[in-house]
């Protein structure tokens, strides 16, 4: 599903690259944890995979398409079609309702509006927010917001989930619930996932762990 | 004897302010010898005068009728006004073309003398703008008229001498001696030139009839209109006849003149000239005209057959006048083509 090969990224003004010649892959249904110390470049790697940042060398293949070979607009479309995102800071749009937030990927991938209600309703049910569709994000707790984010990440049935510290802002109990939810849903939909985390517990629940160090990637 | 001119002169003199002195119109006197070309020109001392050309063309098509008439009216007022453009002499003109099997086209103009209109007192030369009837030294008349629907530019060449109607040009029009006009006719004029129809200029050829008549008083109080015809006969002769009617339609005065191809002239008057309506045509305005008339005079019986029925005319300027005037075929003991004029059938003029 995701194949990263020879990926090298340099900071604009630094001599040393952030990472060099990274090679790994994540197959469909596989859930991979990416761990490493702060500042080692985990988020940058994630950004490169998502096409938000460009790398100097290498390739990022998502569903056989090389993200790095695409223009900005195509990258955006590829993200919309194939990738779901979960962020540490939730990033739920405050001016849209819960249901509208979840509908955004459907709108971006031009899923017929008639299907929205059913799909969003089912997902809200699955993430335990059945009655929350019409609520505004400001009235939700952190755990609830992240559930909304997970629903939004999965609603358009992406092949790949990119999650950046999805439980970083949550208390341990809620974090556990939310993580379970994310893993269950990924497995249910046979979605590949790459989860950046500091948490050993989180890493332990994934199928596989990759550790990013200044020297490179270690399995 | 044109109804229109008569109406106009009556109208205009009726309009004249009662305070202003009635002008001294020149009188029509028997025995005056007309002099030409001087008497082809205008006679502004008389109240009414017209130069009247009617004709039938054989080119570009058979039985196309055409007409161009200039009326000069001495209005009788503002004669003392110190202005060269005072409305003391007004000229009206009327041009028409009859299209056989189709319709009548007509246009008119009006202007005061010195302000768009003009006439000569020494020869036939009258115009309003570019419309004109003008005689050249060789007795050829030049006619010009233009309008949006038609235009013509014709020369009329005499094939016979002119006719002085009545008594050497003195033409009695009623029972009283003053009811008379000076009347000069030139029949059987050869027409050449061009006519524009539907925007297309075509060569024209045919025969025409020229009248020049001036007077100061013609009709009596009770008279309402008249029937008149002027026919170029097929054999080269010329026939002119008229009757004046009262309100009941009875003949008040009638007259006929026939000049044969040898130049012999005969006249009939009174009971010897009989008009009888054979067929009446009702116009869109509701007026009935005896377009087919039987005329008996002496041993002759002729009848008129209009080229088209609808040759009714209406003009609004300066006052509404409705009458019938058009090209007719004449058959009977004499045959020919010419114009028939039927006036006073549309009722009294509303002033």
């Amino acid at each position, binding site marked *: 599903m995701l194949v990263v090969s020879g990926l090298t990224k340099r900071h604009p003004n630094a001599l040393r690259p952030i990472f060099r010649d990274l090679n790994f892959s994540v197959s469909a249904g596989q859930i991979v944890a990416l761990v490493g110390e702060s500042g080692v470049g985990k988020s940058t790697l994630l950004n490169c995979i998502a096409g938000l940042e460009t790398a100097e060398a290498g390739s990022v293949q998502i569903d056989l398409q090389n993200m790095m070979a695409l223009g900005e607009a195509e990258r955006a479309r590829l993200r919309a079609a194939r990738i779901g*995102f979960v962020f540490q800071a939730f990033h739920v749009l405050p001016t849209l309702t819960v249901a509208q937030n979840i509908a955004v990927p459907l709108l971006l991938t031009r899923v017929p509006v008639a299907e929205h209600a059913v799909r969003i309703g089912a997902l809200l049910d699955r993430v335990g927010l059945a009655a929350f569709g019409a609520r505004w994000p400001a009235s939700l707790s952190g755990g609830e917001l992240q559930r909304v984010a997970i629903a939004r990440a999965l609603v358009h049935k992406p092949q790949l989930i990119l999650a950046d510290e999805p439980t970083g802002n949550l208390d341990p109990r809620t974090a556990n619930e939310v993580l379970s939810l994310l893993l269950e849903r990924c497995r249910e939909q046979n979605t590949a996932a790459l989860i950046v985390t500091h948490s050993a517990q989180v890493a332990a629940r994934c199928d596989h762990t990759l550790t990013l160090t200044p020297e490179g990637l270690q399995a | 004897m044109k109804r229109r001119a008569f109406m106009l002169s009556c109208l205009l003199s009726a309009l004249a302010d009662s305070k202003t002195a009635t002008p001294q119109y020149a009188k029509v006197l028997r025995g005056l010898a007309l002099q030409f070309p001087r008497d082809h020109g205008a006679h502004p001392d008389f109240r009414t005068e017209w130069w009247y050309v009617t004709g039938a063309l054989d080119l570009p098509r058979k039985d196309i009728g055409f007409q161009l008439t200039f009326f000069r009216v001495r209005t009788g007022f503002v004669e003392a006004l110190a202005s060269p453009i005072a409305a003391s002499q007004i000229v009206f003109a009327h041009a028409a073309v009859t299209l056989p099997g189709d319709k009548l086209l007509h246009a008119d103009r009006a202007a005061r003398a010195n302000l768009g209109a003009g006439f000569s007192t020494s020869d036939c030369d009258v115009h309003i703008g*570019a419309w004109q009837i003008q005689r050249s030294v060789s007795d050829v008349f030049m006619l010009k008229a233009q309008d949006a629907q038609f235009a013509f530019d014709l020369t009329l060449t005499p094939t016979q001498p002119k006719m002085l109607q009545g008594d050497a040009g003195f033409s009695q029009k009623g029972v009283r001696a003053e009811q008379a006009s000076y009347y000069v006719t030139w029949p059987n004029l050869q027409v050449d030139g061009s006519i524009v129809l539907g925007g297309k200029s075509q060569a024209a050829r045919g025969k025409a009839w020229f009248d020049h008549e001036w007077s100061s008083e013609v009709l009596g109080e009770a008279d309402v209109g008249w029937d008149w015809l002027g026919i170029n006969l097929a054999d080269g002769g010329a026939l002119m006849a008229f009757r004046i009617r009262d309100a009941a339609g009875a003949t008040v005065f009638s007259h006929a003149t026939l000049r044969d191809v040898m130049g012999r002239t005969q006249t009939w008057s009174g009971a010897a000239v009989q008009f009888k309506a054979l067929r009446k045509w009702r116009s869109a305005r509701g007026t009935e005209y005896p377009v087919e008339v039987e005329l008996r005079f002496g041993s002759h019986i002729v009848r008129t057959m209009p080229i088209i029925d609808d040759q009714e005319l209406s003009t609004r300027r300066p006052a509404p006048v409705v009458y019938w005037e058009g090209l007719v075929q004449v058959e009977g003991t004499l045959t020919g083509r010419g114009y028939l004029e039927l006036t006073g059938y549309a009722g009294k003029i509303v002033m």
Partner: protein
Amino acid sequence: MTLALWLIQAQFQTRFTATLLSMLAIALGVALGFAIDLINTAALNDFSRAMKSVQGEPDAVIAPRDSAASVPLTAINQVARDAAVLVVAPVIEVRVRVDNDAATVRLIGLDVLTAPAVMPDLLPRQSAEVSGNLFGDGVYLSRALATRLKRNAGDEITLMRGDATWRTRIAGDLPATRPDDLIAVADIAWVQARFGPLDAVSEARIRLAANTDVEAWRKSISATLPSGLVVKGAADEGARVSNLSRAYRVNLNVLALVALLTGGFLVFATQLTAVAQRSTQFALLGVLGLTPSQRMAQVLLEAVAIGIPGSALGLALGYALAFAFTRLLGGDLGGGYFSGSAPTLVATPFSMLIFFALGCAASLVGAAYPAWLNRSQPLAAALKTGFAHRPPQAHSQRGVLLVALSFVAIALSQAPAIAGLPFAGYAAIAVVLVIGIVAAPLATHALFSHLSRYDLPPAQRIAVQNVAQAPLMAQVAASGLIVSFALTVSMVIMVSSFRVAVDTWLDEVLPAPLYVRSKATPLPQAALDALKRPDAPFVKSESAAFSGLTLDASRPAVALLVRELDRNDPGIRLPFTGPVIAAPLEQTVVWVSEPMAELYGIKPGQQLRLPLLGREMNVFIGGVWRDYARQFGSVVISRGDYEKLGGRFEPTDLALWPRAGQEAAAKNWLAEYVKRYALEFSESVEIRRISLSIFDKSFVVTYALEAAAMLIGLFGLAVTLAASVWLRARELATLSALGFDRAMLTRAVMFEGLMIASIGLAIGLACGVAVGALLTHVINPQAFHWRMQLHIPWFVVMLGVVLTLLAGLVASRFAARQTTLLPAARVLGSVQ
């Protein structure tokens, strides 16, 4: 599209006030533009209709080039015989006074035989109670005139023109004239017999055959006519009517567009802050897969969503405005070109579409830069830290740009008018405004880095640092002020310069204490003779006569002033703008006005061919004098020269100098003549007062537009300040958490607002002076052909500065309140 609508809806809900203000600003701009267009079009149509009602709609008109001359009957009769001519309708028109009424009336002599074809609206109707006919001795009055004179058909009246009088009676009315026409009609011959001209008429109106090539006909017939006559086509008539007020109308329209431009600026401010505020949201959407062009389109769509209702509202508002204006003040926007009753407004779909599109375009243009910024936001960074503005361009680059723009502005200011309109001048004004906007960051940087060197109280220091670090918002706020203040100042300067110039000019052209006019009909000889008698209480009197010369059939006529002045010393009566050149003795000398010199490219010392007295004549240009009264040019000739050419001097105006100490006696002496001949008497002081009040009235609309621009500018300031404060809500909350109290924060924000307003005003003032100079020295001479000195009313300008600063303070206080009202804890705690 659904997403776009959700976002627009969300945006309008969260920034309701700012969005509404932008919408209103667009609406105001559209409304002003549309209203001005409606009124002008209506007034112009009305004016054309009024002219058509009197002149009819002839295909061509033969008229004398010199309005004092006439068209000979021979020419009329010659033209009539042309085959293309259907009707020649001659008229004699003279101005007469009726009985003792003060108004002068147009007496039109026409021929009822020819008039119907060309000017049916002027046809008289004989009254049933009056005997006689349309060719007779009688006049026919328009309803307005009969009402004014309180006369009925059958009444005797006396018409007077100079010493000629016509005692006649009212024979009927003019049923088809317009309700406010003061017209009398009579038979042309009667008018000619009573008032002349003999053997001639004033003009002839011609109907041509339908298929005539009017232009070709006009050329061929012109060649056969005397040179003193001009053959005008129908197109000329339209062009002349339009030319009459074209420059004035275009100027007003440009002013209205400026109002719209400032509206666009407000959209700019609103959308820029909207983009900044939502940078995290847009970054998220970008990560989720919204393409860059979709992110740009979203901002533009929002602008359209502001523009469409704004423009629609503007159209409605504009119509209402135009309606109210025409009801209250008639169709004249103060230019003095149109007068009379309220014209009918006609909103054509075309003009509505144009103004609607302009409103949307202004909104789109305003949103263009914010949209572009939104497109180029770096997603990952924006998602993390919010709005990131690119570091400002290097200042040296801006300096170069400023110098280049200044050269462009100077070059444009030197360019000539295009089609009689100062388009390059308008462009130069736009460039000056751009210069102001480009200079804003330089000035902001300079001021704030200078301020940061001082030891300021903490609140103020925070404000200074903030602006120095994130100058974009400050620049936006300042730019809005720069544009609106520059425009306001420039208008004030232009109007003031003009007013001062007119004031001095009035001194020069009104040398005598008393003036008597007989309004277009010649002064009675009896009065002129009486003036010459030794017992008349006057030291001196000078008279003048007026007529019009048609030099170019498509332009309004040039005024010909015949004056009693010394041809060797015209300078004592005419305010010359340059040298006066003595003419050769045998030559006729004239002095042309500034507009005439500019319109026809005339220089002193040149020879000019003038259509005087029915023929073309060579005259010598002795000099150019200043004339603010006649925009289409005027030419002065001395009475001596005029009479030498064979002209009849029939004065209509008198300037009088009473003997010292006999001022009261002089007025009494005049009163008798004034009463007897219904003359108009005025003192120079009064003429000055009236002239200046007319002048002031003519700028009412200009003032309204200025106020609108200023208001929009202040809106812009308030919106941008509020937004910039809103953006920094978290920062301010942090400060508050660190121990700043509410008052300190308010002070900080107000100080910032004050600094920004000061920069805006300073640059605005500089630009305003520059634009004022452009208006005075480029736009005015090119559009109206008059020049004047620049005069800056410092007191008014400074008052404006102070008031705007105060308004700025109020705006920033409002902005500060908005933020400090937010509970700090919530702001800090909120994730987004």
